[in-house]
């Protein structure tokens, strides 16, 4: 391993990320016309509970069949059944720290060793003041059994921290997922 090249360090995205990073179609993991699509929205908040208006949220997920259109998936790359499914979402936060992506629920995934991962979405958070991204996961509140068997959720002993990974169902059919970078309500973050 010692013959490996040195990796390029991370630096903060800074406050001017809006020049290039927010794409017009960024929030659309699936096209707006997708019948099963719903919004996941939330706020990015700092250690005082104040909104982070210069952040960027990115999401990455499997398709509803639990497949990826990617050559490194050992099951083979699979074209998603939903036309225009991208798997990737990107939303800058607004002046209230709000972000939103339009998506569909990913399928459960086989894990090495025979376990099953509950449906989840990987999240990267970038912001002015964050020198490297922080990573978290969104889980689904209606997947009670699958969540109970999920190896990543099970690895978090602290019930409060574990609960930060569960999105909250909204009356409009969407989900809410607030991200607290610091403090008493701090979200559970991962080193990937």
């Amino acid at each position, binding site marked *: 391993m010692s013959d490996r090249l040195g990796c390029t360090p991370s630096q903060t995205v800074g406050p001017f990320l809006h*020049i290039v990073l927010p794409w017009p179609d960024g929030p659309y993991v699936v096209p707006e016309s997708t019948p099963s699509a719903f919004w996941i929205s939330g706020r990015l908040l700092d250690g005082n509970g104040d909104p982070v208006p210069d952040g960027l949220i990115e999401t990455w997920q499997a398709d509803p069949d639990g497949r990826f259109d*990617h050559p490194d998936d050992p099951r083979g790359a699979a074209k998603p059944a939903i036309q225009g499914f991208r798997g990737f979402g990107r939303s800058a936060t607004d002046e209230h720290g709000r972000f939103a992506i339009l998506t569909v629920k990913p399928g459960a995934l086989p*894990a090495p060793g025979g376990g099953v991962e509950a449906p989840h979405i990987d999240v990267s958070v970038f912001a002015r003041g964050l020198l490297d991204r922080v990573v978290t996961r969104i889980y689904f509140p209606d997947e009670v059994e699958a969540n109970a068997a999920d190896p990543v959720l099970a690895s978090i002993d602290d019930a409060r921290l574990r609960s930060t990974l569960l999105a909250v169902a909204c009356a409009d059919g969407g989900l809410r997922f607030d991200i607290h970078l610091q403090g008493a309500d701090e979200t559970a973050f991962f080193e990937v």
Partner: protein
Amino acid sequence: MTALVLPHYPKLAGVHPLLDSPDYVGTRLRHPLHTPFDLPQRLTEITGPLLGEGRLGEFDRDLTRQHEGEPLGQRIIVHGRVLDDTGKPLPATLIEIWQANAGGRYRHVVDNWPSPIDPNFTGLGRTLTDEQGRYEFTTIKPGAYPWRNNPNAWRPAHIHFSLFGRAFTQRLITQMYFPGDPLFFQDPIFNSVRDEAARTRLIARYDHAATKEEWALGFEFDIVLRGSERTPFEDTEADDDDE
């Protein structure tokens, strides 16, 4: 699926800045206090978005040709390769860049220090790496600019880079600096990378071979993303064995 063998991207020690870097005031209320949990690299982590040509506009690789006239400033060519840390090039991966103009002013609503906007410069670039992982932008050298982190604080000239690689594990946002900048010593963002060798990897190299006579100065900036370890699964695929 009894045998699901996945590539593994070893974690990096001592390369990235600590999120809790108090000299950079913006970190104080934004760095998590809990130690992050270990996320095993499973299917979601070893895959990632493979974004193609559809994201590119005609002049996205040349930031000097996006308006009626040419922007003011020193015209430069920034080129390099995107590799993983095993030395394997990363082809067809999206790079997005953004930067200030020659006077150090960003075309952005929250930048209002008294340096003029250049009507001929947006400061936005995108490209895909080629088969050998190479990329190239034509732009102008950005200026240094003041910020309010501490008294008389100035950011060294830099270009922001955003890279995807091919897996969620490889996602990187960073900044490229210019060689010999006298402002390095006082910049808490540059110096948040504690390891000197790692910090040096953020600095482009002046590249006379890439300098175009009577046209533009050349700078070379290679970007190295985390690589994966060879696994039994990969060994059955002879096509990526290019060492």
